[in-house]
Structure formats: structure tokens, C-alpha cells
């Protein structure tokens, strides 16, 4: 499940400061540096990915996001991005607040646990869902806080977080009429652009 970088790029202002939490090999930041001239910084915990970022010429800091963002100043970035990592955090709600303290705007990408195959697996199969997007078993999954599109929007409402844009994608990473009509059921991936 790889969200098209272009989808996110449109919300990132040229020459702005971007922090990517769980930045992987730095491919997104590299893309934003090359296409939008941003000043990017990544945070990663995985050894191999950190080295990959360095090879890609992307600034990267080794840091465990479960320890929060205390090492970053208020409003020190224009955009804070988190792709496919929020659900692996110990306290996604606290991290979301931290992201909005450090950055003016945030872009969050997560797998929608309300997607129909996941529902079918639990409701009819009686088993926790295992898919290409969420390939782990219940006991070894890093995704300890999965949520649905509705759950995420409820959290935003509760915390007074404004949703600037939302893009929902089906399992083929396409935006379709059905997905847009009933995102909680038909979206495999949700992309949110939020601010305070």
C-alpha cells in the first residue's frame, strides 16, 4: 500500500519545512526535496532505513516516536507528515497533539480498519483480518491501535482538530465513487490533511 506521493505533495508548500515521522528510506522527503525544494527532516527508528535515508541524502534522526516529540520546538515545521505509522504508536492521540504542536499542518495516512474485508474477516470468519496491507497476525502486529475513518474523525472532533482535506483510496490505491460515497466501508487507506 503506497500512497501516491503526488497526493500529499499538493498540500506541501514549496520551500517549506517538512518533518516526516517514520520516514522509512526517505523516499517521500527525497521526492519533496526534488520537486518542491522543501527543507526536510525524517525521524526513524529502524537501523537499515536510517542508513537508507543517509544514502538518499535525506536528513534523518534516530528517535523512538513513542517517547513523543519533546525534542522538537513548537511550530518549528510547516508540515508534519506521518504515513502508515500512527496505528503503531502507543498513544496515537497524544502524538497527534504533539504533531500539531510542532507543525502548523499535518498529513496523516493510515489503513482504514473499517474497510469491508476487515469487517468480513471478523464478522463472518471470526478471525482478526490479515491482508496485504495488514499482513501480520494479531500477536505479532506492530499495528496496535488500528482505527476506522469514523474513529479518526471522531478523535479530531473531540480534540478540535480541523480537517482541511481528506482523500480516501481503495485497495488498489485509487479514489473511486464508491469509496468516496462510503469511505468507512470502502476505503482501504485514508489520507488526512489537518490543522489546529
Amino acid at each position, binding site marked *: 500500500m503506497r500512497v501516491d506521493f503526488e497526493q500529499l505533495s499538493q498540500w506541501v508548500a514549496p520551500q517549506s519545512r517538512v518533518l516526516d515521522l517514520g520516514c522509512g528510506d526517505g523516499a517521500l522527503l527525497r521526492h519533496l526535496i526534488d520537486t518542491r525544494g522543501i*527543507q526536510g*527532516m525524517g525521524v526513524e527508528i529502524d537501523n537499515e532505513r*536510517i*542508513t537508507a535515508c543517509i*544514502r538518499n541524502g535525506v536528513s534523518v534522526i*534516530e528517535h523512538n516516536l513513542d517517547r513523543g516529540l519533546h525534542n522538537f*520546538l513548537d511550530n518549528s515545521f510547516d508540515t508534519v507528515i506521518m504515513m502508515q505509522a500512527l496505528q503503531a504508536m502507543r498513544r496515537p492521540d497524544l502524538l497527534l497533539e504533539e504533531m500539531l504542536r510542532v507543525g502548523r499542518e499535518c498529513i496523516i495516512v493510515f489503513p482504514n480498519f473499517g474497510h469491508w474485508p476487515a469487517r468480513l474477516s471478523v464478522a463472518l470468519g471470526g478471525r482478526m483480518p490479515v491482508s496485504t496491507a495488514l499482513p501480520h497476525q494479531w500477536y505479532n502486529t506492530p499495528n496496535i491501535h488500528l482505527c476506522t475513518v469514523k474513529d479518526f474523525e471522531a478523535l479530531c472532533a473531540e480534540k478540535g482538530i480541523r480537517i482541511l482535506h481528506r482523500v480516501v483510496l481503495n485497495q488498489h490505491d485509487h479514489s473511486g465513487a464508491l469509496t468516496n460515497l462510503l469511505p468507512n466501508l470502502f476505503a482501504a487507506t485514508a489520507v488526512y490533511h489537518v490543522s489546529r
Partner: protein
Amino acid sequence: MEPPILMPDAFPADSVGLVTPQCMAFDEPVTLACGRTLDRYQLMYETYGTLNADRSNAVLICHALSGNHHAAGYHNADDRKPGWWDTCIGPGKPIDTNRFFVVCPNNLGGCHGSTGPASINPETGKPWGGDFPTLRVRDWVETQSRLADNLGIQRFAAIVGGSLGGMQVMRWALEHPERVAHAIVIASAMKLTAQNIAFNEIARRAIMTDPQFFDGHYLEHGTSPKTGLAIARMVGHTTYLSNDAMRDKFGRSLRTGTFERGIDAAVEFEVESYLRYQGDVFSEAFDANTYLLMTKALDYFDLAREYNDNPIEAFKKSLARFLVISFSSDWRFAPERSQEIVNALVGAGREVCYADIEANQGHDAFLLHIPRYLEVFSAYMQRIADEGFR
């Protein structure tokens, strides 16, 4: 077909091989941070690799407390050990001498040929001894920059150092921002903690209370405070290792003696004999006044002192891109100290990469062959070269 070149096979293929130390004399007086002036001085240094046509591929190595200019390679075909950072400098190594031109000086105040306390004071005709001026990290930066001037190096592709060397790297980035493209700070700190100063003070007291110290003028008395210096080294060495590293290396193994009932003979643990040996070897090869001077420079260093004690304000002055590396079991220059550097750099809007390397060797890790460390270091250096040393 060209005839094969006959190579001495004494050295490993990834070694810079046989190297010759060089000496540069300076006649231009240097005013030191303490206010005193040295009219003349000399610096020993070594270079490895080749300076490219536009002089852009130079790397400066800043040594730590007990280091010197011999960072890589061998002085003689029968040398048992290569230079102190041979792990990281050589063909195909992190600081790849096929791509970079490496300069490593022995700092002013050193005891390996650069002007220092054991040199002759031209005013008295006797060794400086305890009268040698107190030095601060910025004095090394200043004298290193004059060495660079004379070598025709306007800007370094990278300045690299571990521990006290890392402090010099950071000071360089603030004093000469336009001369440092990349700053690589390994197992270092923006200032020492009280605990760290305490260990240095124990070391200094051991030296200064040695009856052979003579207020620093031991050379005039034809002697040296070897016992004190050896104890100082034993303290230092212990703190550079981790508890785990010492357990793995020595455990409670006995070198001599036995705990058998009924036998009243002296027992010596391996760790005791090892430390004593290290202390003795060091006290024969190192100058006690240099040891005092270096530990003082460490203690006095405070990167942000003149920037309202605000490291973010300090780093705003730098233009370099940074790589910061720490080691998980290093308690003398703990990962937290490196993270403080990183946070300040991020706050100042500087580009920085940071890796905390899992390693149980303590502070010494920065000198050792630790695969992930060398991988990160190599990746960063390769990127510098690939980007054309900018």
C-alpha cells in the same frame, strides 16, 4: 601489458600503508584564548590520499585526549599497530582515501612533536613544563585553520572528530562557518557534566600529587610523574569502557593466586593487571603536562557559553550539515549529550543526521570496528563525495 607493480605485502589492502609524519613551522604569532601569545610554534601532521584539483575533497581529523597526528597507516614495515583511527581511514573505509584527502594534525600542546609543554621555551631555554599556556578548544581550531591555510585548503568537505575531537568540530562550525561543508561529531558533548569533570580532576590530582611532578617542571629535574600519570590513565580507561565490556573482557578471571582455603597468597584479577599494564605503557609514552592541559580544555569547553548559553543560538551561526553519532553504552559521553546537540541543530534549522549505535564497548566504541557504525559513517561520507564535496 604493463609489468606488475611490486607492492610490499606487509600491510592490509585497505590500509593507507606506509606514512611519513610532516612538520609545519609557524612564525606568525598566535594569541590564545587565555590571553597569552605564542610567537612561534610547530604542528606535526599526517596526510592520506590526494588533494583534488579544486582542493575540495579535504577532510580534517581532530584527535581526542590522548590522540596524535598518526591516525592511519604505519610508520615502519614492522609496526605492530596502525594509527589510532585506522578502522575508519583508508581505501574503501568510511573516510575513503581513494576519494578524500585526509589531514590529521597533532594539536598544539600535544606531546608527539607539536609545540607543547615538553618543548623548549625560547625565552628560558628550558622546557615549558607547567608554564605552557592553558589551551582551549578554540586555540586548536585557530591553529588548525592556519595549517589548512598553508596547505591551500580553503574549505573542508568534512571535519571529523570523536569525543574531545567532536568538540573541535563543533567549534570549527561556529568559528569558520564558511570553511566547513560537513561536520561529523562522534561520541561528544556541548559541555562536560559534573561527573565527567570529576573524573578528570581525579586524574589530574593523581598526576599533581606525584612527588616527581615538581609543579610541572619534572623535565628540568630529569624525571616525570609516571605513577600519577599511570593512575590517571587507569581512571580514564575504566570510564571509557562499559560495565558489560569489562565483564566480557575480564570477568573475575584471576591472573595469579587462588582463593583456595588455607592458601594465603596475593590474588590478582585480570582486570587489575590489564589496567596496570595500560597505565604503565601510557605513562612511558605520554607527557603528564599535556594530559593536564587536554583534560582542562575538555572541562572548560562550553559550546554555547558566549551565545547566552543557548545552543540553538550558537548553531544558527554554523552553515555546515551535521552527522552526529553516539553509542548506547557510552556513559562518559552519553547518547543524551549527542541528542542535545541534535535537538539544538534541529532548533537552529540546520540539516542533521543522527544515529545512536547499539554497542557495549562504552566510549571506546568510536575507535572500534562496529558494523552499523561504519555503515552509517560510510554512507554519509559517500554521499558527500557523490554530491561533489559540496
